[in-house]
């Protein structure tokens, strides 16, 4: 049967089992929206800004392991979406973004709402396509879904000119697809895996370091089994939180620029490091030259060969899906008689416990001002550690990562790579739709939240009862912190003057707003908010303006050069 391009788009999305499309209509996608209107197999969520559409699709994907789908129009629709696409790309989130384009005959004519979408997005997508022939539309969308989800996942964009959505073609949706130029290595090399296991069993000061790859590949149960079987310490990156249970005694906390003292010390002083789905980035190990130790052996499991030996030279590289590689490692260890030597391991743990005694995350609990850390701790208690937490970017993000103990994967949703302010609220919308009935909090700050504040309207329209935990310190806190430490307290443009009344603002959008100014009111306010199951509650916590995130490693320094709270 002959279908129009617009009908084909809809049918493809239905074939892929898409539940939600996040989008915003416009001239170039009107044919697609018209077909969307005529069907009820999937729902469309109308955001208030295209960036929000992509973040929402992103949050939907991260919290569910499904592919997020966004639909935007040409020109400004695309340029608005770029921040969202780059965010998803940096954190390897599988998404398909469908964009309208001016008709093929108008391409290159500087037509109204024309932009070079494929050119603009090329550096921030896993792949993109411009479909000029309606006969190639279905197969291209199939390729997009396939590419997004396999190998190292990522966003894939399909740009469709308006005349292609009008033209007709026979609809055949391929069940499977192969591309001769795309064959990611998915099974780890058996010899390398054997070598890795032997290194681990012989280790004296072992450390396991896992990242977002464990979450993306649903490998946290394998990782957890491995860590417990070996009895080794384990740290997670910002992207990897929840990959290993945050309340497990073998968990040493997050590592990196704002990681725990014990994790960073153990990373530096270990003799065998197992890196799983993590990429040794600058916020994690700081300066690679300071990290180097000639007597340390590094095993690195990753789906992306280009992540291996990029910043840090690796001794045993293993390319493959981390879950499958960990399965193989578990089999080898379980069938081996050898176990790590208990006495050397005990001595290593004693050293780590000594580092833990620094109690690097302590803060002033008796303060008369609301400490942001207290809000997160109470949030953890009130939600019994079982919420989905999205965040924006800055101090609040680090506090949420440090003080909320994530026991499960896909519960901590934040922009780790790109560091996108304005991510948290739209992402929370996607999380809520992917997990109806779940408890969802967006931890944010008064600067970040204003970058996507318009999405409060979307939350109203779709009854998304997200709880917004606004840590309001009247500063762009992380900028202020750097200015305090490294720029002689010159707070250039980091003060948020003329803030709105967030309570009234929330109410104006049809939500509940609450302002909390005393530490004693924090817990009660949170409890009240989470009792309101069907309402979005905006909790505006007026926090201590001077609070800083500790520990901290200054940019370009080594892992052991931490600034702790007491040292200032």
């Amino acid at each position, binding site marked *: 049967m002959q279908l129009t391009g617009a009908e084909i788009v809809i049918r493809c999305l239905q074939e892929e089992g898409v539940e939600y499309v996040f989008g915003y209509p416009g001239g170039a996608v009107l044919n697609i929206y018209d077909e969307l209107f005529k069907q009820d197999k999937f729902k469309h969520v109308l955001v208030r800004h295209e960036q929000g559409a992509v973040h929402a699709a992103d949050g939907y994907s991260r919290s569910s392991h499904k592919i997020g789908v966004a639909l935007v129009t040409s020109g400004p629709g695309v340029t608005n979406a770029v921040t969202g696409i780059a965010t998803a790309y940096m954190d390897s989130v599988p998404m398909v973004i469908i964009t309208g384009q001016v008709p093929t005959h108008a391409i290159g004519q500087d037509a109204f709402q024309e932009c070079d979408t494929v050119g603009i997005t090329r550096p921030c997508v*896993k*792949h993109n396509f411009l479909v000029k022939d309606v006969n190639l539309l279905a197969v291209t969308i199939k390729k997009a879904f396939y*590419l997004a989800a396999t190998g*190292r996942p990522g966003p894939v964009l399909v740009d469709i000119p308006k005349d292609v959505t009008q033209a007709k073609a026979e609809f055949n949706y391929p069940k499977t697809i192969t591309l*001769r130029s795309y064959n990611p290595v998915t099974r780890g090399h058996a010899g390398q895996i054997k070598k890795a296991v032997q290194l681990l069993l012989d280790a004296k000061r072992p450390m396991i370091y896992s990242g977002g790859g464990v979450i993306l590949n649903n490998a946290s149960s394998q990782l957890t089994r491995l860590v417990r079987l070996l009895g080794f310490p384990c740290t997670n990156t910002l992207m990897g939180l929840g990959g290993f249970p945050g309340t497990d005694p073998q968990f040493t906390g997050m590592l990196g620029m704002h990681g725990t003292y014990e994790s960073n010390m153990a990373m530096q002083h270990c003799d065998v490091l197992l890196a799983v789905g993590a990429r040794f980035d600058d916020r994690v190990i700081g300066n690679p030259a300071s990290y180097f130790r000639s007597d340390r052996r590094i095993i690195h499991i990753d789906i*992306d060969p280009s992540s291996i030996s990029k910043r840090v030279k690796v001794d045993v590289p293993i390319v493959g899906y981390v879950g499958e590689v960990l399965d193989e490692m578990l089999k080898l260890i379980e069938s081996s008689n050898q176990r790590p030597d208990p006495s050397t391991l005990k001595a290593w743990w004693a050293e780590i416990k000594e580092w833990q005694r620094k109690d690097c995350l302590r803060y002033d609990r008796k303060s008369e001002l609301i400490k942001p850390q207290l809000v997160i701790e109470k949030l953890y208690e009130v939600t019994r550690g079982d919420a989905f937490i999205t965040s924006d970017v800055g101090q609040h993000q680090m506090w949420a990562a440090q003080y909320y103990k994530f026991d499960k994967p896909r519960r901590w949703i934040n922009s780790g790579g790109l560091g996108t302010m304005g991510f948290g609220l739209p992402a929370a919308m996607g999380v809520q739709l992917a997990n109806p009935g779940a408890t969802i909090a967006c931890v944010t700050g008064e600067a970040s939240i204003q970058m996507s504040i318009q999405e409060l309207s979307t939350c109203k329209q779709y009854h998304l009862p997200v709880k917004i935990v606004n840590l309001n310190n009247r500063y762009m806190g992380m900028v202020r912190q750097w200015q305090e430490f490294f720029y002689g307290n010159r707070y250039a443009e980091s003060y948020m003057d003329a803030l709105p009344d967030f309570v009234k603002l929330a109410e104006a959008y049809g939500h509940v707003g609450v302002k909390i100014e005393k530490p004693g009111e924090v817990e009660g306010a949170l409890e009240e908010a989470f009792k309101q199951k069907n309402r979005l509650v905006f909790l505006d916590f007026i926090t201590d303006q001077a609070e800083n995130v500790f520990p901290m490693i200054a940019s370009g320094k080594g892992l052991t050069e931490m600034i702790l709270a007491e040292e200032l």
Partner: protein
Amino acid sequence: MRHILSILVENEAGALSRISGLFSARGYNIESLTVAPTEDATLSRMTVVTAGSDDVIEQITKQLNKLVEIVKVVDLTEGNHIERELMLVKVRAAGKDRDEMKRLADIFRGRILDVTDKSYTIELTGTGEKLDAFLQAMEPGVILETVRTGASGIGRGERILRV
């Protein structure tokens, strides 16, 4: 160190900009880049001459392999290979220079493709070094115009790059 990368890539619109974009985005250098379709019209073959430490070349190769449209990448400089570049040079050929130019072209096994009263256009093929040597052998001011293709390369003997 100088490396010659041979790349088989899907002959699709935009493939070239993906590759050149990768080099500029990640700060890798390109000395030269040539591309044309192969005997299989669905594939293009590209030769990129680049320079960098072993670590950088390893990253370049990995990053290229990650591009969805790239079918294969080979570092020709890892083994025996042949490398050729084509140059067209327009030179002043009047008076006493005229015979000298013809002689020089002969010595370098160049061919004169176009002749006017005042100029020759010479075609020369060889390694980049040979082409450089030819240009250096000429009196300054004689060269009116040059155009070079950049290097193309192929493995020696049984080394074959194909799908």
